[in-house]
């Protein structure tokens, strides 16, 4: 086994990992409940489009919403039952706004739908488009939390891939779903890696796992040895938050940096989490669409923290119930970990593709936002920033709405990991400021685009009017010239048609002059 020289990203935090709480027991499969709520937007990109109606009977794994556009993901029925509604419901999203969901009442039979893709004995016999289609049809998205449609990442030129990075870092405290998945289903993960290797043909495959997961590392190494994959290696990395961030993990494993504003693909790298790779195995080899995932239910606010295999669309309250229910003084519920998780107002929300963890906390572990002091520019934030930003400067610019400066200081390279916030001695909610500033800047950009379009439209209109005017004038001039020409021709022909009129005008002028002279004379005499 080769010892790989590791890169190092700037900053980072050593946090209490709190993994032991939820890794003592194996993953438990939660039996399907009675009702499932499936948001049409569980991924980055366009909403999926429903292909069922309320009242329809559906089988387990049946397509209920199809991907809409290039960047979108299919959604499947997590169990057999009846579609009871397609309506707006509260979803676990930071905005807190309700969103369109398909609601399914289970029939308790949990019967597979007809016509699902058949298992594939040898994926090597499938060509690349067929494999990507299988992954797209299975509704697979990044299960590490970002929920980027996986097929969109794979639709690329095969020759451009240098490294396939498999993300098993799981750096955020409390979360252990990837850890447990690697321990228990390493063979399936390795099988998924083989599929991706066939698809992408990377020169090397690096599986990054933090050194606080020895059991997962062992399991993955054993599975790799058994599968005999070439140029594939488990790389043990130091436990340091946020090593599981895509850019940070790439830096550690390859010592390369994803260009600012660019994608890993731009430096020949594709990154997938172990959960996603596992889902690829399920979809390609076993023909199962993405209808379940492993979720960590943990925190000092639940009685029996552990990992569950849950059907997507299961309500959080049911999963917490299975984890022994809440501790009496629970006050906060997060989807995700304590550093980047989204606080949920209620537990009557569905678990979705991006739900890696539900973290229930008591006040003991929580921050209080009301005691912020002014920034003293101490630079602690700068020391821990994994993007090597100047959070203290970004804070000033964001707060002063000096967005040009904020962008010049690379606001959009902020990954919102929360390191700066955590170490800030003034307890300033820095990430909140950055998120707000990013939102404002995006809004301003949209407005500017709109204004630009309007301005271009206006310019075009002005140009058109000027052109029309010029054309009109040219036409008039031509007409006038033609008339002159005609008149000259007539004059030359001795036609004095105008003369009586001219004589009349001359006579009138003469009369007016005479009258004026008369008046002047009278005036002189009077004086």
């Amino acid at each position, binding site marked *: 086994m080769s010892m790989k020289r590791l890169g190092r*990203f*700037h900053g980072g935090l050593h*946090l209490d990992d709190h993994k032991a709480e939820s890794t003592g027991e194996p993953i438990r499969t939660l039996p399907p409940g009675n009702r499932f709520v499936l948001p049409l937007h569980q991924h980055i990109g366009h909403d999926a489009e429903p292909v069922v109606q309320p009242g329809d009977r559906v089988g387990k794994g049946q397509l209920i919403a199809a991907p809409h556009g290039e960047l979108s993901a299919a959604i499947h029925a997590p169990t057999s039952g009846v579609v009871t509604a397609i309506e707006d419901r509260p979803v676990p999203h930071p905005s807190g706004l309700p969103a369109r969901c398909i609601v399914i009442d289970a029939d308790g039979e949990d019967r597979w739908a007809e016509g699902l893709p058949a298992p594939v004995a040898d994926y090597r016999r499938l060509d690349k488009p067929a494999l990507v289609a299988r992954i797209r049809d299975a509704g697979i998205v990044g299960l590490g939390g970002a929920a980027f449609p996986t097929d969109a990442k794979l639709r690329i030129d095969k020759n451009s891939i240098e490294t396939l990075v498999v993300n098993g870092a799981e750096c955020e*405290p409390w979360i252990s779903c990837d850890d447990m998945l690697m321990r228990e289903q390493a063979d399936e993960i390795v099988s998924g890696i083989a599929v991706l290797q066939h698809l992408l043909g990377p020169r090397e495959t690096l599986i990054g796992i933090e050194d606080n997961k020895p059991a997962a590392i062992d399991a993955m190494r054993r599975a790799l040895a058994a599968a005999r994959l070439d140029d594939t290696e488990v790389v043990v990395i130091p436990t340091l938050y946020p090593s599981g961030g895509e850019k940070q993990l790439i830096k550690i494993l390859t010592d*390369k*940096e*994803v*260009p*600012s*504003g*660019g994608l890993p693909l*731009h*430096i*020949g790298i594709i990154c997938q989490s172990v959960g996603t790779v596992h889902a690829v195995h399920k979809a390609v080899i076993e023909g199962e669409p993405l209808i379940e995932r492993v979720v960590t239910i943990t925190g000092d606010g639940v009685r029996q923290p552990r990992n569950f295999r849950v059907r997507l669309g299961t309500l959080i*309250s049911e999963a917490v119930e299975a984890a022994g229910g*809440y501790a009496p003084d629970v*006050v*906060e*519920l*997060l989807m995700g970990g*304590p*550093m*980047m*998780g989204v*606080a*949920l*107002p*209620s537990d009557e929300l569905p678990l979705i593709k991006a739900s890696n963890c539900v973290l229930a*906390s008591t006040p003991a*572990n*929580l*921050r*209080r*936002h009301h*005691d912020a*002091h*002014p920034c*003293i*520019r*101490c*630079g*602690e934030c*700068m020391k821990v920033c994994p993007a*090597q930003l*100047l959070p*203290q400067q970004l804070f000033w610019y964001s707060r002063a709405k000096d967005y040009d400066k904020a962008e010049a*200081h*690379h606001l959009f*390279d902020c990954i919102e990991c*929360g390191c700066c*916030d*955590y*170490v*800030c*001695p003034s*307890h300033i*909610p820095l*990430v*909140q400021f950055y*998120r707000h500033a990013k939102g404002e800047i995006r809004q301003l950009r949209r407005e500017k685009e709109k204004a630009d379009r309007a301005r271009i439209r206006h310019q075009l209109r002005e140009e058109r009017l000027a052109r029309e005017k010029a054309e009109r004038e040219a036409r008039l001039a031509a007409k006038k010239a033609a008339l002159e020409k005609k008149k000259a021709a007539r004059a030359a022909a001795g036609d004095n048609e105008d003369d009586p009129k001219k004589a009349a005008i001359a006579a009138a002028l003469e009369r007016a002059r005479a009258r004026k002279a008369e008046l002047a004379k009278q005036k002189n005499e009077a004086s």
Partner: protein
Amino acid sequence: MKFQVDSSPHLAPVNDVGHVMRQVLLALLPGIAVATWYFGWGVLINLWLATLLAVAFEAGVLALRRRPIRPVIGDWSAVVTAWLLVLALPPLAPWWLLTIGVFFAIVVAKQLYGGLGYNPFNPAMIGYVVLLISFPAAMTNWVAPTTIADVHLGLLDSLRVTFTGALPAGIGWDAITTATPLDAVRSGLRQGETISEIQNSIAFGLLAGEGWEWMALAFAAGGLWMLRRGIIDWRTPTAVLGTLAALSAVFWLVDAEHYASPIQHLLGGGAMLGAFFIATDPVSGSTTPTGRLIFGAGVGLLTFVIRSWGGYPDAIAFAVLLMNMAAPTIDAYTRPRVYGEDSRP
């Protein structure tokens, strides 16, 4: 079930401004102990009085500004300012001098600019410079080290001097004060003496000044402790002391009879206090890594220039204030490279 909603991150913070400031105060204690040993009760009286004044002024202004008082007092920054000012002032400074200094530091330099975090200048140094320019005579009444002085003032006598200005019967100011080492160097050179003649005096102690050298080393020890605890960044003090040492070494090597040695510069005045405790003020200094090196180097350079050719024996305060002006510009030009900024496929 319903839950409270807050934005990420959700972990309780590990750090606290008040905690940082209290550690700065702790780091000052060795220097204060040495100062008290060599310069008497006046040091402690001044610290006590300035602390009271600083807190009172801060609370007063906050009340006028209709701002919450408790959390601001609780950040201990006023006390840090008060202590730093006192350690730059002569022990036995009269109460009114302290009052004016603390007033300018806390009210004018800090609160009128918006309070902690908004002051462009180091408040303690503003207070010090106001006093130095306005009351030069009172500012040069430096107490002679107890180890070489003929007269020692007790606690009660020191209190009386501070509050009434009256010395015990039969003792004049000349009996208890002396020039600071840097002042002695300066006036000696002006009178045509050489450095070795000047440093022959008993007031120069072992290295750079009786009492002063140990005080400087004690401040350096406190500063190193802060470095170890991660309270200050290594760049600023290293740049200040490195630049000061390098420049003074060059001139001293060329002409040792007319330029003080690096040791004299580093240990004979306010260099250690300035490098570790004053130039490292994050609010008024540079905030980027490279910027801190430039800021510190500027403080070292200006200190050497003013000490060697300027109108004042010590110069940390002026150097820091001048560099405070430059800090925003330095920051603007020293942004570190961001992850992936010039990365190419």
